[in-house]
């Protein structure tokens, strides 16, 4: 899909885009969010998006703290509401490149209403939802994406709730671009984020991340490497298409570009309406 010349990981130096004076960062050892951040910054670099013209809007939680490390215009908003803030910012300042970083709790629980309406409305921005199956920052509580039977600090006997499929939700709500990737292959994730940037409208990318310290250990999922390997093993990339039959590759979690449709971006649509024709 990506026809641009390959730029090697060695050429990309993430440090030039980071607020290094804030380091060391707060992420736990083994946390997948760092890889997601690397993929995001790499995608921005390859797309030649100026840090001055970028606006990163975050919610609350581990994912929400990532923004502070990016040397750009960064907004750490209220819990669940980054999409609402980003909607106002993107409409008021269409010259900015707006990226939202949110988590599974932030985006699907407290902020679920904003997600479905952002998908439906189609204001130009990219939403990266970092899904680590847990509320990490508050101490490891169950989230809408925690797998059934998993133990968390609020499901001491195991989780009785089914998971939210964020990508299906986004698709059903009308999102024109939906994608999913795991953090194990950063270049693949980077390429997916680039495609999301290219989409004129609201693009949603779910990034399967891992919480080793608070979630993995409690559920004996092994160390970070084991967690991301098993995440990768559970995926069924879109590149498989129909070429590989289900019985031979039973992996269930679709990754890659899951939805890409032509929809008129909100602002463009709004401007196409004739004010004189209003009732």
């Amino acid at each position, binding site marked *: 899909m990506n026809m641009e010349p390959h730029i090697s990981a060695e050429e990309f130096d993430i440090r030039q885009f980071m*607020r290094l004076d*804030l380091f060391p960062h707060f992420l736990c050892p083994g946390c997948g969010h760092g890889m997601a951040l690397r993929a995001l910054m790499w995608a921005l670099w390859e797309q030649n998006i100026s*840090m*001055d*013209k970028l*606006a990163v*809007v975050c919610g609350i939680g581990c994912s929400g703290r990532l*923004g*502070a490390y990016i*040397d*750009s*215009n*960064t*907004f*750490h*908003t*209220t819990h669940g*509401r980054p*999409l*609402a*803030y*980003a*909607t*106002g*910012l*993107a*409409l*008021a*300042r269409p*010259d*900015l490149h707006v990226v939202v970083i949110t988590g599974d709790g932030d985006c699907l629980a407290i902020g679920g*209403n*904003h997600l*479905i*309406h952002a998908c439906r409305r189609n204001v130009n921005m990219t939403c990266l939802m970092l899904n680590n199956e847990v509320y990490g920052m508050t101490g490891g509580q169950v989230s809408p994406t925690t797998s059934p039977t998993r133990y968390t600090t609020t499901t001491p006997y195991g989780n009785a709730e089914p998971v939210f499929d964020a990508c299906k939700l986004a698709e059903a709500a009308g999102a024109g671009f939906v994608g999913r990737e795991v953090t194990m292959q950063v270049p693949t994730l980077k390429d997916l984020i680039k495609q999301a940037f290219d989409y004129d409208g609201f693009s949603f990318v779910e990034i399967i991340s891992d919480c080793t310290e608070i979630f993995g250990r409690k559920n004996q999922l092994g160390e970070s490497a084991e967690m991301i390997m098993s995440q990768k093993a559970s995926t069924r990339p879109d590149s498989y298409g129909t070429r590989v039959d289900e019985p031979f590759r039973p992996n269930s979690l679709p990754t890659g570009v899951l939805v890409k449709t032509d929809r008129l971006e909100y602002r463009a649509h709004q401007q196409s309406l004739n*004010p004189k024709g*209003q009732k």
Partner: protein
Amino acid sequence: MLAKVERKNIQGNEACALGAIAAGCRFFAGYPITPSSEIAHTMSRELPGVGGTFIQMEDEIASMGAVIGASLGGVKAMTATSGPGFSLKQENLGYAAMVEAPCVIANVMRGGPSTGMPTRPGQGDIMQSRWGTHGDHPIIVLAPESVGEVYSETIRAFNLSEALRVPVVVLIDETIGHLLETVDLTPPDPASIIERKWATCDPKDYKPYEITKDRVPAMARPGDGYRAHTTGLTHDETGFPTQDTEKGKNAIGRLLDKLEYHKGKIESYEAIDCDDAETLIVTIGISARAAKRAIKSLRADGIKAGLFRPRTLWPFPEEAMRKAAGKAKTIIVPEMNAGQLIFEVERVIAGKCKTVGVNRYAGDIITPSEIEAAARKVTS
């Protein structure tokens, strides 16, 4: 040459929207709620014509978030709501106070708690408008008493909000919101319209929350190269979160001191016949209109009555009220709730005279005769 005078017979809610546009508001995000909806209707009709943006969001919380997002982008922004929606906006309102994002919230008060009486008037949000969000925070609340004042106070709300980087609430009761009055809509002198202080220094020297003498830091416009960080976490002068209690104390201290330092600019009140008033009436909004009528009748009968009306409700103009109550033996506080403003009046007067409430809390307005009767009772 005289400016063109434009007089129109309009509702308070329309006046609010037109005042906002005159003040330079170019972004409105809202959610339908009675009795404020005409503000959204007017904005949706008028904003596109002046290059602005109207959006109806999915809920009250999202509208407040979108307003702050637009404001952080550098555009003057507002929302409008009523009691239940005002409650929902409170968390983000606190964020606006904390990150010092200028914004205006019109709250057209309905009767009663909870869903209450959506089409009937109330003044039940006097305390919510001051203390609705959690924690210590600065906020300005303006309380107009007429359609004309809704227009001019909404303009003043934007000017104060931009000048001081603080959220400003325009507290309107349903009666004023739906009252039709002829208003002078002459556009304000462009020189009187205040724009926020933008950062112009070298980005290397920029401190987003610098503690300066006037307590109002310059704001960085995204895209201008400052690459600032904005967070609702307690932050120091750099804008980044801090766990250092000393830095936190300085930052929050400056934030809370901001309005006290600019008190002279913010304060606005009306004092009628207060010099010799033995019976002082303190009230706001439509209740003040009734009080004005009551004072006339009382004075005609030789009762020394006066009115003190805080146009700026919060911060409460306490010194001015103390002065107005210099000769007062009794202060009467009519309000369309079970007693909120009276608490502030009692705090300010600190036991120096008697206080009496005149209260209606089930959707009726307070009549002049009720206020009169209360005054006659205390003076007989």
